[in-house]
């Protein structure tokens, strides 16, 4: 008997595995794998993982290390402690404007663009005839690149001399004097707002589609129950639908924050992120990937951006982790 046992055990997991609890099943299923299979699995995930870590996470780490140096890309690397950071917050004139523009972008998206996208989703969630036409129109800007969005809005916002539509319309209809026509993208006191309008045009549709998909997945019996209890539409949304949508809400917050921190293309197209349109992202490239080649200094800006980005990333991951463990 005793010498038969190992053999008898070998096929057993497959038979027993069928009905047992998952953790038990998983452990046993593992034993079904041959050594070759295990090697193959390791390869399937290992190769992409190593490339990903090298290209994304090692470069992130390199940014952190380089931020403590004054490397210009040619001379040997010399560590200078926190000098880049001190210079950044004390003497560098564009750091605080860039940071505040990024924060403004974030606040504008969180308070206006994202809620507006949610609002559209809620409106379109009713059984409307031709709802798909509206959806298509609101979503269309999302498939355009931010570079194209920049040009399309430049046609609207260009100054009078550049044949911008808005200024031409305002002057032609006599609403403003030709001498007072604003330069929407050029005037540093207003251009960040014009850019935010253009960027929101794309962001709203994105949020709408995400939210609409979430709304469609809400169990209709919840709404019926709320209606029977006498709740009106607004009450149903605030007290029943919105809380059930918690997972989507988190995704939307993360998308909104990340998009605000990544903002780059549209500003780069307009004026390379200068003259009122400074952003963290453009400061990095303007300093490090340019004639100046201030790699250490540019990296310090990248580290500030990284630190801010880690907030939503950690928030999101801890959330995923929690649902995963449940």
């Amino acid at each position, binding site marked *: 008997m005793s010498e038969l046992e190992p053999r008898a055990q070998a096929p057993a997991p497959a038979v027993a595995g069928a009905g047992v609890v998952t953790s038990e099943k998983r452990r046993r299923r593992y034993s079904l794998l041959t050594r070759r*299979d295990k090697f*193959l699995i390791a390869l399937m995930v290992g190769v992409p993982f190593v490339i990903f870590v090298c290209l994304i996470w090692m470069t992130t780490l390199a940014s952190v290390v380089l931020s403590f140096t004054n490397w210009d890309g040619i001379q040997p690397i010399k560590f200078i402690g926190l000098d880049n950071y001190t210079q950044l917050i004390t003497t560098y004139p564009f750091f605080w404007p860039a940071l505040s523009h990024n924060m403004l972008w974030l606040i504008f998206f969180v308070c206006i663009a994202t809620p507006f996208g949610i609002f559209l989703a809620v409106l379109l969630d009713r059984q409307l005839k031709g709802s798909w036409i509206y959806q298509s129109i609101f979503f269309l800007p999302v498939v355009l*690149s931010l570079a194209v969005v920049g040009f399309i809005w430049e*046609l609207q916002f260009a100054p009078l001399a550049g044949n911008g539509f808005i200024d031409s319309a305002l002057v032609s209809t006599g609403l403003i004097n030709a001498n007072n026509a604003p330069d929407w993208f050029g005037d540093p006191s207003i251009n960040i707002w014009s850019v935010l309008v253009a960027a929101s045009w794309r962001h709203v549709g994105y949020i709408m589609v995400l939210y609409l*998909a979430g709304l469609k997945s809400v169990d209709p019996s919840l709404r019926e129950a709320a209606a029977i209890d006498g709740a009106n539409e607004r009450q149903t949304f605030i007290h029943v639908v919105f809380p059930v949508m918690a997972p989507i809400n988190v995704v939307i917050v993360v998308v909104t924050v990340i998009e605000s921190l990544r903002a780059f293309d549209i500003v780069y197209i307009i004026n390379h992120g200068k003259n009122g349109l400074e952003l963290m992202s453009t400061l990095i490239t303007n300093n490090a990937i340019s004639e100046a080649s201030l790699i250490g200094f540019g990296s310090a800006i990248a580290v500030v951006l990284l630190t801010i980005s880690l907030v939503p990333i950690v928030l999101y991951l801890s959330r995923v982790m929690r649902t995963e463990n449940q």
Partner: protein
Amino acid sequence: MSLHAAMAGQRMPHDRARRRLRRAVLYIFLTFLAFIFAWPLLYAFYTSLRPYGEIVANPNGPFSLPGTLNFGNYITFWNETDLPRFYFNTLVVAVPAVLLTLWIASMAAFAISRFSWRFNLLVLMIFTAGNLLPPQVIIVPLYKLYNMLPVPAPLSDNGLMYDQYLGLILIHTTFQTGFCVFVFSNYMKTLSKELVEAAMIDGAGVFTIYYRVILPLCRPALAAMGTLLFTWIYNDFFWAVMLIEHGDKRPITAALNNLSGSYFVDPTLVAAGSLLAAIPTVVLYMLLQRNFVSGLTLGSAKG
């Protein structure tokens, strides 16, 4: 407010009429918004059809009705820039990048979601978190790396990663893999466990299970992500502008950068150029609208 109050109260005789009115108001409001949203594109199209001289001659500038409308600007743009070349560059980068990403990410997701080992969740987190980083955080070391890493001749014509299609394909594939692994592993978790078990008992190896069992079941997810990835890579501006030096190697979206600042010269040409660059993704969207929506939804379904 009063409409809401009416809904909340008991059903009244006027209820139906009020509801109809409410509907009408909603339609008018939505149509108004839809027009505002469509306006910048409609206007861009309108401008692109007008001869520039006509706008300049008009005292009201672009705020005017057309005398002539034709495709002259498109023809000029096509002739004066190397447009086919830019489209070609986009295809050379985007097609391999999309296929590679789908292949690599589905394999990694398969290994992560279908088998249990110690660091499953950690590996998934590292992929997901990496994809959420702003690309500008890594661009400086990446740029240097691309300029220092030697690449042998058949793969690179300057001995580097920088200014090469290969370098662009590599960073797109890597960056998007992070997101795709996350989406695919969520999708695969919803597939029945018994399928893999049954195949295993039949003696199928891991790769056979991936290729013959899991991958066919993932077809909807592959289609959705493929569409989404192609659009994203097509629309990429940042990587291409930073990592491709020569204008004639840049994909179409990044090549638009050459237009920047030229709107003072001729906005009608800018309009035609940006629409030409936008047309492929718009057509793709019209044909595969469902894929876009389900792709975005897959990404947010869980977590």
